[in-house]
């Protein structure tokens, strides 16, 4: 049997390194586009302050960018190191978008980021502007391919199982590319990145204004961030709704868990605004419900039902029983590839093979599973309700706050009063961490809500792990925690130093012996 400690450790490591990686990604996404906008204004108007803005936000961008790039390598490697069975089982489909991401996007952004920093004196204005936009384009395309890969984990379309090679193989690559889940997740995710970039520029500019320095610089930066932020915040919520709708079509269990909807309700179902879901008691304590709302969001109709958790568990029990037949006939086919009876049995039940595998958690002999084990496996298909319920609500609340915040900022900027209200500047400053919080919560909802699957309905998480000793994963997990913590401290230290240096002091620092710079850094 597969060592449960190994599974938990591998999940913890992937979760921690992924959430850490995504501390840097949204800012890269948002700031790269903001740099492109600022530099475009510079090239069109020729006013040097816009060049200074591009360069200064660029320096901060660089400190963040390098962490995003490096911690991304960890993500790619971990599929092989910690999820070897996954890599074998779905590499035929999942590997392709990752490789194309490298070819189409990552090369572009990594090559032109060098030009962004080193090209100022070596290229014409327009050529440099092109380099900046290619950097932004590469960054965003990179997100597209990663989310095509991730979208396939949520909604595995365009693939069939091959008994000879014992894995999933591509049947329609265009289905994988135009997977509706991937498309809506892409726009949702990059928009969240734009909100992060806008908030970053708002908050630091607000700090400049609060301490009374770089007024022109800060006001202009805020003007750009306010309008870009408003458009992005609207897009996050609208496209978030779109991803909710597409999820309800293919991940009904995820929606039921997020809503803590224990049994199917008559349509249109109510939306639980507040409450404490209890998975053991299968009920939600102290709940406050808004009638009709969930049904309207999830089905866009007043008559269609949103299925509840217990109803889906019963349905999944049937699929597990069918999956047992698929698993058993597959084993026969592996040793006797020409057995016609096994072949026809397998073909009938292959769609439930993944459900059969859920039993491997309890027994190595899937065909001999007891009714109690089947019951347990069926309940395993329910993700942990409480954290999902609250992560989702907090994320949505933050999304609403961003719309209000940027709408007000936009109004102030239209009236040229961005620097007039100290309370607003203080609010901007303290709101700095919120976009990061909502992005991380979003990933918790998406990935924790996908459990117990790595590939929804196809491959259970515990089956996906590598066969490595748990001690090795302990070592790497502790190693990552220590190493990443040190890096985070160094990154934050530099970021704060360079914010304090401000636009007037941030370049040319590397030269030793320049006393003014050293003094500016307080060394």
């Amino acid at each position, binding site marked *: 049997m597969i060592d449960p400690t190994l599974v938990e450790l591998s999940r913890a490591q992937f979760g921690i390194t992924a959430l850490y990686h995504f501390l840097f990604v949204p800012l890269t996404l948002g700031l790269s586009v903001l740099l492109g906008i600022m530099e475009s204004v510079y090239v069109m108007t020729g006013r040097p302050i816009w060049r200074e803005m591009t360069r200064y936000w660029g320096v901060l961008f*660089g*400190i963040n960018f*390098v*962490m995003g*790039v*490096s911690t991304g*390598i*960890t993500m*790619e*490697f971990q*599929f*092989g*190191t910690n999820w*070897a*069975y996954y*890599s*074998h*089982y779905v*590499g*035929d*489909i999942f*590997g*392709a978008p990752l*490789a*194309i991401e490298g*070819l*189409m996007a*990552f*090369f572009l952004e*990594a*090559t032109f*980021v*060098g030009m962004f*920093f*080193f090209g*100022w*004196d*070596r*290229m014409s204005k327009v050529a440099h502007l092109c380099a900046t936009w290619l950097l932004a384009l590469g960054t965003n395309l990179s997100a597209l391919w990663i989310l095509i890969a991730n979208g396939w984990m949520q909604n595995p379309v365009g693939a069939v199982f*091959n008994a*000879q*090679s*014992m*894995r999933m*193989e*591509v049947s329609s*690559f265009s289905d994988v590319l135009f997977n509706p889940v991937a498309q809506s997740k892409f726009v949702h995710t990059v928009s969240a990145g734009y909100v992060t970039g806008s908030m970053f520029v708002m908050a630091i500019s607000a700090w400049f204004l609060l301490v009374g320095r770089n007024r022109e610089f800060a006001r202009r930066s805020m003007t750009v961030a306010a309008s870009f932020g408003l458009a992005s915040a609207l897009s996050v919520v609208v496209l978030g709704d779109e991803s909710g709708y597409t999820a309800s079509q293919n991940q009904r269990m995820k929606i039921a868990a997020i809503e803590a909807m224990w049994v199917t309700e008559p349509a249109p179902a109510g939306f639980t605004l507040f409450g404490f879901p209890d998975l053991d008691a299968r009920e939600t304590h102290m709940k406050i419900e808004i009638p009709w709302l969930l049904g309207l969001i999830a089905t866009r109709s007043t008559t269609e039902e949103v299925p509840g958790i217990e109803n889906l568990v019963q349905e999944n029990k049937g699929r597990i029983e069918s999956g047992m037949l698929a698993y058993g006939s597959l084993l026969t086919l*592996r040793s006797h590839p020409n057995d016609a009876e096994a072949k026809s049995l397998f073909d009938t039940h292959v769609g439930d093979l993944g459900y059969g595998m859920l039993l491997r958690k309890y027994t190595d002999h899937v065909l001999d599973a007891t009714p109690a084990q089947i019951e347990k496996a069926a309940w395993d298909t329910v993700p942990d309700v409480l954290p999902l319920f609250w992560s989702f609500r907090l994320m949505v609340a933050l999304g609403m706050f961003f719309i209000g915040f940027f709408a007000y900022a936009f109004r102030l900027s239209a009236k040229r009063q961005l620097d007039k209200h100290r309370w607003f500047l203080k609010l901007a400053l303290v709101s700095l961490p919120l976009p990061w919080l909502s992005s991380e919560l979003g990933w918790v909802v998406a990935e924790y809500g996908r459990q117990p699957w790595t590939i929804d309905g196809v491959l259970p998480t515990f089956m996906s792990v*590598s*066969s*490595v000793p748990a001690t090795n994963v302990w070592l*790497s997990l502790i*190693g990552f925690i220590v190493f990443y913590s040190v890096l985070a401290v160094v990154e934050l230290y530099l970021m704060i130093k*360079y914010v304090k240096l401000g636009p007037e002091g941030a370049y*040319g*620092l*590397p030269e030793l012996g320049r006393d003014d710079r*050293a003094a500016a*850094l307080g*060394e």
Partner: protein
Amino acid sequence: MTLDYESLRVIWWLLLGVLLTGFAVMDGFDLGTGILLPFVGRNDAERRVVINTVGPVWEGNQVWLILGAGAIFAAWPLIYAVAFSGFYLAMFLVLCSLILRPVGFKYRSKMPGKTWRSSWDWLLFVGGFVPALIFGVAMGNALEGAPFRFDETMRMSYDGNLFGLLSPYALVCGLVSVAMLTLHGGAYLALKTEGIVAARASRLGAFAGIALIVLFATAGAWTAYGIEGYRIVGTLAHDAASNPLAKTVSRATGAWLDNYSTMPLTLAAPALGFIGAMLGVFGLGSAKPIIGFIGSTTAVVGVVATAGVSMFPFILPSFLDLSSSLTVWDASSSKTTLVIMLVAALIFVPIILAYTAYVYNVVWGKVTTKTVEADHMSY
């Protein structure tokens, strides 16, 4: 035009070679530069010169590795699964080094403190040396075979640990890799710098080149007469679904020479390795850095190709369970995926090469203390 599955597999074996060579050539001089950094630059100004020779291009170069890994994942998923999980802790060390390196380049000169900078310099050395060594050691382990087997559901088990990777033979392969990349980094620095930095880089690079010739010959003799190579017994369909368990394999000393006797033309690969290394030493010794760089690049191509050609059609053999060995014929993705990836590669690789060439053209020229001082964006 339609390609059959067999040809696609051979093409993807070649492309894997191209990507790994691309990585070894492009990121190779970054790694070599890191290894040489503390020795070639004796004060802060000199070290900044060294770092700024790769400053504008290391990010692009590193993508060769990421693309290489992505291409293995997409085209050779079983290799990806077995190699990455089998060499678990070694991969973790590589990963930490590969994270340290970009961060080191970027952050080192952001603060003026002496301790800050010299710490990053040594971390950059580690970030160059460790991956160079481990990639070579991994290649050595591939040539010796690794201790893994598959069960009937293709779940792999691996019977080895980090120290098991460090056999004497694999260590020699690791040193081949370190010497090769140090030569390459030295040649790059000789080309991009002048004065005392270029002189030191040439001298150390030439030493590394001589070491490479000796070590490559040692590894070659050891491969031919010391370790056991692998052979497929009987016939194996070249266009069947990928199922490694369907073949029989035998081991014998000297089996890794089979391809050279059946196709003598393949001897060009090791020959290029030696000629390149000699040319590199000659170029660096006679103050002709361009010849040195052409030589070191040729050596990298020759050495990587030698490993690939010796093992073909094997990619990652297993000594624990011979028939679990992974070969070109039974470890690839499906035909559809290989076609899709080939189309993607044919479209994007020329574009990548074009803009990479553009960027090298923009940053063309020597890096000196003056140019580093003059550019406020320098590292």
